[in-house]
């Protein structure tokens, strides 16, 4: 594959198998991913799908069994020491030494990365921790630790920012602040890879997504395209008098349109122009009170693609995801 010059992150055929007591467990099974410069890229997958393994492999914390990775045009893991200064990352839960203050924690990282100490105050200000900078990390709530983790990732002023569940533990205000910060960082030219289970946030924040299930990519591309590709094309139709619903269903069915009747509305599919529904029904003096195209949201697409839609009365194991043969 010829590397794309605008790609900040490229992963091809990444494989990783863990040895476990119950036998080898394949965490990554030829996973592919591509992130373009300047994107806010959502990285989604159910628990145990391989997200964190991918990020840990990228950061050199574990070794892949096969496949290729390139970050900022450099081959990993060989060139990791060269590019690590331009990659800010938090992986899994925030991990800091509890007895140090927030300022000490960042200051030591600045020293380790040979960065100016002035960035400590800047990063703390950015995540709203300036006033608690002299408190020990062990006194912080999960949300505050999360903010500190983001601050530590931002210290490098990286070109690529990898955030694993950055909104974990944040209050609604904090989630919104985080979202706005992502937008600001992206606008400044930073590429952000964001792993999260808050799919509504991903849908708002991200330009592109990659969805992983059982170690394989099951969907990738701009959010709008992924949603469109999995849209049902259904239209919800309600009429003025509920008693007219059976007649309306017959009219549409006779016109060759697929109809499903519910208690107070019809679900119509296979219609190119929803206006034709109004016209057909109006000819029989049945007047439409609601005509709404049903659009897919990221959550439903995610649940469908990964096969993790809850079924009443059934319990799902973390590994009960869908195995997809091609993305």
């Amino acid at each position, binding site marked *: 594959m010829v590397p794309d010059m605008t790609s900040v992150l490229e992963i091809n055929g990444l494989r990783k198998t863990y040895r476990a007591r119950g036998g080898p467990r394949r965490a990554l099974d030829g996973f592919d991913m591509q992130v373009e410069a300047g994107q806010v890229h959502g990285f989604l997958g159910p628990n145990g799908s391989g997200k964190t393994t991918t990020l840990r492999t990228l950061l050199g914390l574990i070794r892949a069994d096969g496949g290729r990775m390139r970050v900022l045009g450099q081959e990993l893991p060989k060139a990791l020491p060269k590019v690590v200064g331009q990659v800010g990352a938090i992986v899994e839960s925030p991990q*800091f030494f*509890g007895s140090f203050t927030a300022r000490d924690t960042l200051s030591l*990282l600045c020293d380790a990365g040979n960065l100016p100490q002035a960035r400590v105050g800047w990063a703390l200000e950015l995540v709203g921790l300036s006033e608690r900078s002299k408190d020990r990390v062990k006194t912080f709530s999960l949300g505050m630790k999360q903010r500190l983790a983001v601050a530590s990732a931002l210290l490098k002023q990286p070109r690529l920012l990898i955030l694993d569940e950055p909104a974990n533990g944040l209050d609604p205000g904090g989630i919104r602040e985080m979202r706005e910060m992502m937008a600001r960082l992206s606008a400044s030219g930073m590429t952000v890879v964001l792993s999260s289970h808050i799919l509504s946030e991903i849908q708002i924040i991200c330009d592109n997504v990659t969805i992983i299930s059982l170690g394989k990519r099951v969907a990738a591309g701009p959010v709008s395209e992924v949603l469109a590709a999995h849209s049902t094309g259904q239209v919800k139709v309600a009429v003025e008098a509920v008693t007219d619903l059976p007649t309306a269903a017959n009219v549409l069915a006779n016109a060759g349109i697929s109809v499903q009747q519910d208690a107070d509305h019809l679900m119509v599919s296979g219609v190119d122009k929803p206006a034709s529904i109004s016209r057909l029904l109006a000819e029989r003096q049945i007047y439409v009170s609601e005509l709404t195209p049903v659009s897919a949201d990221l959550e439903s697409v995610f649940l469908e693609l990964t096969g993790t839609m809850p079924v009443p009365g059934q319990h799902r194991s973390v590994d009960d995801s869908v195995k997809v043969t091609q993305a």
Partner: protein
Amino acid sequence: MSLVRAERRRFIKRRMIVWTLVIFVGLLTTIGSIVFFTTEKVTPAARAAAQAQADREYQRVMDEYQRCQESPTERCQGMPEPQREWFQAEYFMPPTFNFRNDADDFIIAWAILLAMFSFIIGASFVGAEWRSGAMMNLLTWRPKRMQVLGTKLSVLLGWLTVVGAVTFGLWTAALVGIASAHGTMERMTNGAWQSYGLTGLRGLAMILAFGALGFGLASIGRHIGLALGVALGVIILGQFGLTLVLRMAEVHYPEQYLIPYHMQAWMEKRVEIGDPFAAPGIEAPTKIISFGESGSIGLGVVAWYWRWRSTPCAGAISPPRRSRHSLGRVAAACAAATVGLWLTRSGRPPAGGCWR
């Protein structure tokens, strides 16, 4: 250099390390104070008083002996005639601190205490980082793991050298002060000072070795608890348990297999041990454990362990797995190697090339 700077700062910011050093200095101060307040300088008046007391004691015992001669009682049976040399003035002198005779014991106390604390400091310096996850965070900044661990170890040993040198200097100054005020500095020739300095250097080497040992164990287990657990295991099983087994098996010169005797030999240059299981009626010769022998065993274990880690053997598990999942093997192999080295004294692995 930036990582060295960061680790240097991290070391002195760690509260546990600071408190450990404070406790160590507190213990030395307590020992020094006890010595100071229980000794006094030998003045002519004190010497005269001691002489007078020695004379009185001699006279009292001689009177009793003469009474026995005149009218023997049951109590007098077997009473020897008191000799004048049995009642010397020195025996009645107040405790005093003779630097030449006594300082080595206090340097050994300094070295053993600091070695113990260095083990804890070494284990804590890296173990707490692993446990809290701060190490993984650091590795996302400096991905060369061995470089990070190597730098941490170097910084640890550097700081321990500084702490060792400074406390050795202060301890020496305190002992000189005690000797000057409540004892004597007599016979401290250049040679005596040189010997004293070399004892200090051997002590410093032991301190660094214990620091590195704590660091290494905590690195393998990624937890300070593992290092402390191994230390406890060695004390309980390796010392008390081994002592019991050796005595039950009536092994000759059992002390040669016990670590404290080798530590003592390292510090005092030699230790003489007897054989409690020599044949009845035969006076068994004593055995000398020299500091060279003890040091060689320590170095041999380190060299063997290094070779064990780096030499692939048939049937051995692959290095990436071994590094994380074979603590039991490491511990068992270390124990086997130690015993093997001591027994064979050859330093060579058994047939097959591997101890695994």
